[in-house]
């Protein structure tokens, strides 16, 4: 993550370096059913951040001893393509990717109705094709769409977004430049229909008041993201029926 030195990240009018307002998302794109082999798949873009998600399962676990008698086993891999970053990223899993795979898995453990599928595995594979900040939260959004596309029952749809603090101001959906020189980065994943926050991290320093305001910024944005997820899913299934 490079630091932008000497560049003002917010101008006098409150515009960010790419022209966005503090509480404005980058352009978001969602598509589902983008892969042939996977049971469900999705492509999600937040600006230049692009995530491909695939879901396999419920199916027999590859390693059978891992099967759980009373529920499905979840496997999540968050992985960055070597060409997704400014400098090539080694394809071997980094400590960061191992941690993010864990927190993303935990964001879905209580969302997927795992009790319906004992002794099976549900696999969520997330590939960051291009990274420009907010990859873990866009990955959650992509995973939610891919799970729905695979027909896996869930309590609710989930989406994610990060709120950052740059030059003393809270901003929504930080990109890499903002993250690199920001004072704080707070990724949030939320299921608005059941009012549950399923992923929550903060790297950096915030006051109690900023935390509350930042959290509300994220939750509001996620409500809109989930509406877009629903529209994306409806459009796909309406058009499929017409074929």
């Amino acid at each position, binding site marked *: 993550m490079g630091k932008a030195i000497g560049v003002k990240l917010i101008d006098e009018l409150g515009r960010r370096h790419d022209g966005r307002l503090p509480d404005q998302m980058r352009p978001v794109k969602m598509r589902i059913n983008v892969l042939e082999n996977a049971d469900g798949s999705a492509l999600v873009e937040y600006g230049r951040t692009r995530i491909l998600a695939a879901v396999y399962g419920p199916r027999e676990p590859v390693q059978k001893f891992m099967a759980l008698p009373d529920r499905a086993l979840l*496997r999540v891999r968050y992985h960055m393509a070597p060409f997704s970053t400014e400098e090539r990223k080694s394809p071997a899993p980094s400590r960061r990717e191992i941690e993010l795979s864990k927190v993303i898995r935990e964001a879905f453990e*209580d969302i997927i109705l795992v009790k319906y599928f004992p002794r099976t595995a549900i696999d969520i594979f997330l590939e960051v094709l291009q990274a420009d900040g907010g990859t873990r939260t866009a990955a959650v959004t992509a995973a939610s769409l891919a799970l729905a596309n695979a027909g896996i029952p869930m309590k609710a749809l989930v989406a994610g977004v990060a709120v950052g603090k740059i030059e003393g101001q809270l901003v929504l959906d930080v990109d890499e430049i903002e993250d690199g020189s920001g004072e704080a980065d707070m990724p949030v994943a939320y299921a608005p229909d059941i009012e549950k*926050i399923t992923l929550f991290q903060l790297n950096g320093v915030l006051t109690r008041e900023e935390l509350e305001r930042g959290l509300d910024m994220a939750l509001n944005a996620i409500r809109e993201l989930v509406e877009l997820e629903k529209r994306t899913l409806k459009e796909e299934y309406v058009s499929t029926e017409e074929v």
Partner: protein
Amino acid sequence: MSLTPFKVPIVPELRKNTILSLLAKGLRTSERDLVTPRIVRVKTGVIERAEGSAQVELGNTKVLVGVKTDVGAPFRDTPDEGVITVNAELVPLASPLFEPGPPDENAIELARVVDRSIRETNAVDRKSLAIIPGSKVWVIHVDIYVLDHDGNLFDASMLATMAALMDTKLPDYEELETGEIILDRSKKTMPLKINKKVLTVNIAKIGDYLVVDPDLDEETVADTRIVIAYDEEGNIVGIQKSGPGAMTREEILKAVDIGREAVKIYFKSLEEATTSAE
């Protein structure tokens, strides 16, 4: 790849019911209220060979942290700053749940949460760790060694890390004309420059209750956990929701307020241990 844990300790349903019915009365199996951590003991200077060390006991959880230092090259994007690395080992002697092998996702998460709390606050002044800016800097290795696991490795590790860093003294060195640095590890005199003290509070959500410093039984039955890092002024300097399950907005904000009070107890233990050592 991250998998649903398939080797988890089994807490009988009865035990869970006991924990929940006690919580309803404001009590816990470990005979304390919901917002008080277990008894904390902090001892510094426990490994003479290390540049700094500390052992923390949090109830029956025991964590040892050793700090070793080396001279190395700085990162390219921060040429005038030293390097701090944090690693955690869930040593197999500490729990039947731990297996020998490279750090798993739990060890990595633990190390990274501690690392971020120190890094984001510049708790250890990294600029003061430059020896020859651009080429030679101190590399500070923090190694977290879990010795006995009875829940809440986060708070114990963070407390032990902070105490060990405050206990650390850099070895004396000689700078040769060639720019080479020769360390004399027999003499350690220079303490680290500590800008900020940072500690975490781990709060478990069990049913509708939020409990500070969960023990292993409580962690096992918990719906989820949130680990919040604070500085001494009560600023929030890091958060990690850890574990499956979810929280509401209100629960998160309530946890932040509960944690801010509880962290004072940890800060007091840190203060006592580090001043008595001098």
